[in-house]
């Protein structure tokens, strides 16, 4: 029995699923005769392969069918801003493509009340040889506006883009920033009842981003429009959305207020990095003082898989002492993806006094405001007695960092990855 639609639902998604056919590795021929036979029957095989690309249905249960989305059910009320989060490959884009009518669901249904505009990309259909003005009309009509509607908004679009001077210049002479401005200006004036956005805020400079965020808030809040917003940007989801859903492996695993969903995501998202805790056995050294396990813990004391930039991160290391020694020291050395050392946490300098260790226990290194940009970082671990290295393991753990509001300004370091952020202030006289 399908749930009945309540009138005020702007979007109702019922048991939605989408299957794709994925390539399956073919057997390699190892002798000349079978290779020749294979090349002769090749066209027939190719034909059935290409033909089958579109013949996936809900009863298909073949090995090369992949369900990008399955059993997705949710409602969005009019005026709500729904955040959709999840790792890459969790099915966010497929869901948006179905909501935007670009691809048809394999099963289930979507009901949309009102005019939909979807922005899976900014500047779709921009032609480099046309001028800014011509592209406003082309892009606007592609996004579903009529000529008359664009004419009414034209002045406002140009003003919002801030490139009045170049409006009669071919777009190929524009800088990439100018192109994005113009494209977003058109998108911002669509004025739909339901707006579907995919990460479009992750482009452009900070000032322009703030302008876009402001425009989005205006659309969502004041005008009572419904927004579906996919993002990797946890701070933006928390700030803009009234509700959020978390996708994992194509289905909704958590739904609720954004704060909770984001926290749940950061804690539980299956981490791609630290899958092997026995890895610590590979360490070099005499292991008189060794580390056996680690945990990443957030400010609230929960174990997390992904850290958030600018938030407190506790790295809890479990140790064992087989033979005691003088002056135990623990070193964490953080490296970026280019294996450059970014910074080192050396307990000899930062721990007040001398560590007194038990036979077994834990040592926590607490970083109050994680100064790392989004990315994946490796941490080398060392244990020493004085200068004697008892435990040495390069890339002992990996930390995945998500975007966060490091400076507490509401602005995010969107365009930067894999590096450090340093706290600083500005003074303007």
């Amino acid at each position, binding site marked *: 029995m399908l749930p009945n639609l309540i009138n005020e639902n702007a979007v109702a998604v019922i048991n939605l699923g989408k299957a794709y056919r994925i390539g399956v590795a073919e057997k390699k021929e190892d002798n000349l005769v079978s290779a020749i036979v294979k090349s002769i029957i090749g066209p027939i095989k190719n034909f059935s392969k290409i033909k089958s690309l*579109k013949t996936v249905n809900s009863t298909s249960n073949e090995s090369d069918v992949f369900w990008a989305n399955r059993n997705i059910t949710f409602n969005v009320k009019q005026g709500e801003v729904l955040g959709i989060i999840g790792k890459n490959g969790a099915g966010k884009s497929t869901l948006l493509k179905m*909501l935007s009518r670009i691809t048809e669901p394999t099963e289930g249904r979507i*009901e949309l009340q009102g005019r939909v505009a979807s922005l*899976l990309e900014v500047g779709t259909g921009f032609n480099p040889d046309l001028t800014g003005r*011509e592209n406003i009309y082309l892009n606007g009509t592609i996004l579903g506006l009529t000529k008359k509607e664009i004419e009414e908004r034209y002045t406002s679009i140009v003003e919002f883009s801030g490139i009045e001077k170049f409006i009669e210049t071919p777009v190929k002479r524009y800088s990439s920033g100018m192109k994005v401005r113009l494209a977003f200006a058109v998108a911002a004036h669509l004025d739909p009842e339901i707006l579907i956005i995919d990460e479009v805020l992750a482009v452009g400079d900070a000032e322009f981003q703030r302008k876009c965020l402001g425009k989005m808030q205006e659309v969502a809040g004041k005008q009572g429009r419904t927004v579906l917003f996919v993002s990797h940007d946890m701070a933006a989801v928390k700030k803009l959305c009234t509700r959020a859903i978390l996708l994992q492996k194509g289905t909704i695993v958590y739904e609720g207020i954004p704060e909770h969903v984001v926290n749940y995501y950061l804690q539980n998202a299956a981490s791609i990095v630290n899958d092997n805790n026995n890895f610590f056995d590979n360490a070099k050294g005499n292991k008189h003082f060794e580390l056996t396990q680690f945990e990443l813990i957030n400010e609230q004391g929960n174990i997390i898989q992904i850290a958030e930039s600018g938030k407190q991160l506790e790295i809890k290391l479990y140790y064992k002492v087989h033979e005691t020694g003088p002056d135990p020291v623990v070193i964490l050395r953080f490296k970026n993806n280019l294996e450059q050392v970014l910074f080192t946490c050396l307990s000899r300098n930062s721990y007040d006094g001398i560590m007194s260790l038990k036979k077994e226990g834990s040592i926590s290194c607490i970083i109050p405001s994680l100064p790392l940009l989004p990315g994946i970082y490796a941490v080398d671990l060392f244990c020493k007695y004085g200068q004697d290295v008892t435990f040495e393991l390069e890339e002992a753990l990996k930390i995945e960092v998500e975007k966060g509001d490091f400076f507490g300004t509401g602005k995010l370091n969107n365009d930067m990855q894999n590096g450090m952020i340093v706290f600083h202030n500005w003074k303007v006289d």
Partner: protein
Amino acid sequence: MKNLTKVVIENSSKKLFDFSELFRYKDLLYFMVLRDVTVMYKQTVLGFFWAILNPFFQIVVFSLIFGKIAGISTGQSNLPYPVFSCLAVIPWSYFASTFTASSNSLITTAPIFTKVYFPRMIIPIVPIFSKLVDFFISLVILVCVMLYYKYVPGQNVWLFPIPLLIIIISSAGLGFWLSSLALQYRDFRFAIGFFLPILMYLAPVAYPALKVKEQLGNTAYHLYALYPLVGGVEGFRSSFLQNQIFPWDIVAISGASAIFIFITGALYFKKMEKHFADVA
């Protein structure tokens, strides 16, 4: 909530043609055509002269090879071969360029329609209109050739929009068929380039259609007209000629055939449409 459009999306939606939606997107068609026309000759030295040069050289070559060397008769003693070939090359060129562009249209537009929803039917239709600009420009050659040979068009000249319409309808129909086929089976891209010259020799471009009647008989002649370009090209040419009866029989057969291709093409396109984003 009042008068909000409600859209239901599910597998194999029943709705066949949404004409009101197509009408709502008419401005998109307009701007896509405008884009094609504006961009076509950007950064070329000769610009719109290319629309004249292309058929012009074809007419020169045809007049030399078929008119002079092969000595193909135009069927009328007072009709010079260049006038004869000009009247066929111009509508043929329009068909050839439209057919090629329309068949490839989905492949070239894939970056747009995999990101935004709009009625996909617009895509193969765009070249039908944008190439008309070239067609009307190339009519300049026709006027020049006729002036040069002091050839006055016959009394049927006002009938030329009918065969032109046959060409338009059949290229749109073939565009529907081939664009959706070529998107999934890229073989068609190669096949189109290969078959186009064959299609030209099949059409009465270099020779009069009546030649077929003379050689193969009346039945074969009418079967021949099932190829819409027969009625299209021959009808276009006949309407300009003096002392020529307008070939209503083959125009009617070709017209019916063109409408058949158009309707089946549109139905096939509509059936395949939902898979476009998945196979693109």
